């Protein structure tokens, strides 16, 4: 078969690559290939790279202990998607040809769906590194898993918190330019209304627009003044918006989600005082996350840039647990094991897939900016029944 020729060529190439990467583990019969179709270059690389670094650290540690489930040494093959959807599908196909039994896909919905459509008929479990659009798993089918707290889970956590604080009326600021900015505030609105709050107004912006005066005038002119503004805007829109909002004399609190947990926004100082946002985890003193951060710094030579690293590391742990449960390297058995995972003890808290549509229920850390610092408010795991449908 000519195909086998092609495969042999690839196997040789990959063996060469991972001869270096994994300090020449002899090719055992009990080897499992994990294919990583991730963005090494392009716009998605800043998200994929930290997550992949965490995953590699977990797999290195697991291999040192005998591999996934203590039995299957991992051969991680990484291919660059160049942040391009078509290229993601192509390299995913190459990874399948190379014998991948588990697929890792980029932090974005389009390429993850494209790759998932190839793995779905073959039953290969596919995990997105940090894609958080809840529609992702539904679009592909039962092999596709999210790993990061989904947009609707984050929104539920923030909404629960706002209700608990006694907030009653919210203004939703969305942008149709990205799934995240378009939908997250709407998920918030759904939970908020269900729990007794009201949405008193909506506004939209174009990502990258410098001037928010129209939206701010709209907010000021509302007959029913909101006591909260919810948005998923991030840089550069969030700083521009809040600056102009406060300059216009509006003091209504503004809440957001994980994308504003950045040094730039922290640097805005008192301007963002009181802004509540989310994170995938918070390293409390003595917590597992703090220990991970130290271990990662030792492993990689630099501290984690975000919670994407720990998220990637947890993917490794999830896979290890799933292979242990499945007791084999059969992709379908591994898939079933992931889908039935319940209260798995990760680094950031308990992770549950059972009963979800494969976007995990997992803890969300609520944070608040205070005096130019990120202060941990609480870490919560929203009730599955409260999370709105994608």
């Amino acid at each position: 078969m000519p195909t086998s020729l092609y495969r042999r060529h690839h196997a040789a190439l990959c063996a060469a690559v991972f001869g270096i990467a994994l300090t020449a583990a002899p090719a055992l019969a009990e080897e499992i290939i994990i294919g990583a179709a991730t963005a090494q270059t392009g716009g998605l690389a800043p998200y994929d790279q930290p997550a992949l670094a965490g995953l590699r650290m977990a797999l290195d540690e697991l291999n040192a202990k005998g591999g996934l489930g203590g039995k299957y040494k991992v051969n991680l093959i990484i291919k660059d998607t160049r942040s391009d959807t078509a290229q993601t599908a192509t390299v995913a196909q190459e990874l399948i040809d190379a014998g991948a039994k588990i697929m890792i896909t980029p932090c974005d919905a389009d390429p993850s769906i494209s790759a998932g459509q190839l793995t779905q008929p073959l039953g290969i479990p596919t995990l997105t590194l940090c894609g958080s659009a809840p529609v992702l798993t539904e679009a592909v089918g039962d092999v596709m898993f999210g790993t990061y707290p989904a947009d609707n889970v984050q929104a539920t956590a923030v909404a629960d918190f706002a209700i608990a604080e006694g907030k009653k009326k919210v203004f939703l600021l969305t942008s149709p330019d990205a799934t995240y900015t378009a939908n997250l505030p709407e998920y918030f609105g759904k939970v908020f209304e269900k729990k007794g709050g009201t949405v008193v107004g909506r506004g939209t912006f174009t990502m990258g627009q410098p001037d928010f005066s129209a939206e701010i005038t709209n907010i000021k002119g509302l007959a029913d003044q909101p006591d909260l503004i919810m948005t998923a805007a991030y840089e550069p829109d969030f700083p521009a918006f809040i600056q102009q909002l406060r300059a216009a004399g509006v003091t209504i609190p503004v809440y957001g989600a994980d994308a504003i947990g950045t040094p730039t926004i922290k640097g805005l100082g008192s301007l963002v005082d009181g802004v509540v946002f989310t994170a995938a985890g918070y390293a409390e003193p003595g917590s597992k996350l703090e220990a991970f951060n130290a271990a990662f710094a030792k492993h990689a030579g630099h501290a984690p840039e975000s919670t994407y690293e720990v998220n990637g590391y947890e993917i490794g742990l999830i896979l290890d647990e799933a292979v242990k449960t499945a007791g084999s390297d059969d992709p379908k058995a591994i898939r079933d094991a992931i889908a039935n995972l319940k209260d798995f003890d990760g680094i950031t808290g308990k992770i549950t897939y059972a009963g979800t549509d494969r976007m995990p229920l997992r803890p969300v850390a609520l944070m608040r900016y205070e005096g130019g610092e990120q202060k941990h408010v609480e870490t919560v795991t929203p009730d599955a029944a409260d999370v709105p449908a994608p």
Partner: protein
Amino acid sequence: MVSVTASETRSRPFLPAAFRNAFVDALAMVAVLVLAGLAVFLFGGAAMQRVVTYAAIMLTAVLGLQIFSGNTGIVSFGHAAFVGLGAYATGILTMPAALQRTALRDLPPFLAGHELSFFAALAVVLVLAVLIGLLTGTPLLRLSGSSMAIATLAMLIIVYTLLVASREITRGSQPFYGVPREVGLWTAVVVASIALLAARLFRETSFGLAARAAADDERGAAAVGVDHRTARLAAWVLSAVAAMAAGAMMAQFLGAFSPRDFYFDLGFTLLAMLIVGGMSSSLGAFAGVVVTIVVVEVVRRFEGGGVVLGFQLPVLFGLTQGVLAVAMILVIWRRPTGLFGDRELDLLRRSESASIAASAEPPRRAGAGHVAADHLSRRYAGVVAVDDVTLSFDTDSITGIIGPNGAGKTTLLNMLAGDVQPSAGSVSIGMPVGKASAFRFARAGIARTFQNIRIFPRMTVLENVVVAARQVEPDLAAAEAAAMRELARMGLEAFADRPAAGLAYGLRRRLEVARALALKPRFLLLDEPAAGMNAVETAELVAILAAVRAERRIGVILIEHDMRLVMNLCERVVVIDHGRVIADGTPAEAQTNPAVVAAYLGSRTARAHMDAKTD
């Protein structure tokens, strides 16, 4: 007449020579594509098949861009928008109804539940493409040159915004998913092959020729009857069709996409591929895609590290883009017009153009016609170039228009040719032409040449004349035969296959005359035909003009400073000074007219001159 027709039919083969040549070229490219497809089908894995499928889809899109930009010379950034529209249309039409109900809950009913097969959807998309092409092209093509290019950029932004805003239909900025994946290697290869044929043949159609001529020289093209707007619109619509076909395949190839997949990145990728290969030929589009994909695929295999010829390569992600960028810079630096520039394969051009039999002389123009200027004036911001000129010219005569520099001769000629609108007065050319414009006048039998030659440098000598002949002949084969006839008359048949840019100056002048004669004009307007020619060349030109006039009985009106030529050739001389006619008569009369002498030599000298004569 009857015998002429018979001999023409006998010597005329199945297709015009240019089409046969284009057809063979296209088949050669299709053969390469099909062989590549076969190779990966037999020897490649599923991944390699995906690479070739993707290459064929990109080729279709790049050919779409080439059909417009290559022929009209106007860069388009907007073709990514057509790819996107094709993709979304196909996605909606082919999506399973059950999935549509969950993924697109608010889809308008007339769009819902079609579940078409890929080819049925493609047929709908192509019809849609024609409509969208006409809709976008009609306003866009009122602009020209760089403003048109910027307008295509605006179109890209508008389409992107519409796709993002039409949430009910497109899911907005969220991923559009659930498109069945029926497009495989062979579908893509077949569609790309059809696009190759279309792109290669379009160059030779009357629209393609006209668009290329207008790209080379817009005024020159109008002077041979080319309506560049219609030609550009045709190129735009066909290019939209190809780009939307590529989009239809892309939808089913990707399975999931969002508007940003069809935005600047794709627009510039398409342009980059085309520029690398060479914008003005379908071979360039083909080569650009092949070279880009091959470079990417080869380099990509090394960026993960490995051992090559005993050397240990480091892991170097990003190498692909780096090598691609360097390759592009090299191409643009070493070959600014792309790898293949404006060259097509032209496998048969030499032999095929040699096989074109020159058609017989056109029948003599029966009866008289005339061109008349009635109180014609033209003012330019206070300067009166032509002032109340009333003149009439008959066929079967040669008239010279002379006068000092700046007298208004060329402006008068431009108005007679429909190229310049009169400020007052009117021109009648013996038949109704509707709105006065250069191309309508040309088609109505007023042919002209220019003071500074306006040939089409990037087209061959033969094509230069075929463009004109195509305006008056019923089909391309007849136009080729007529063009060959005019080339032979001007002694240029040996140069038929050469690019016109390579001709010597004197030959370019002749080419321009040959091109004008191919319009089978009633009147031939020549603006300084002998300028820059030596005495021998001038003598040859005089002989040819005299012969043409005698054989075809056309009216020749020429502006000339070479008095010997005027006196030898012309039967009537019109002298113009300061925009007014100061003399009109035989050459001898003009020579002795004191006003004429005064205009040329100044009034005092003229008086002295006259005194000397009377003495």
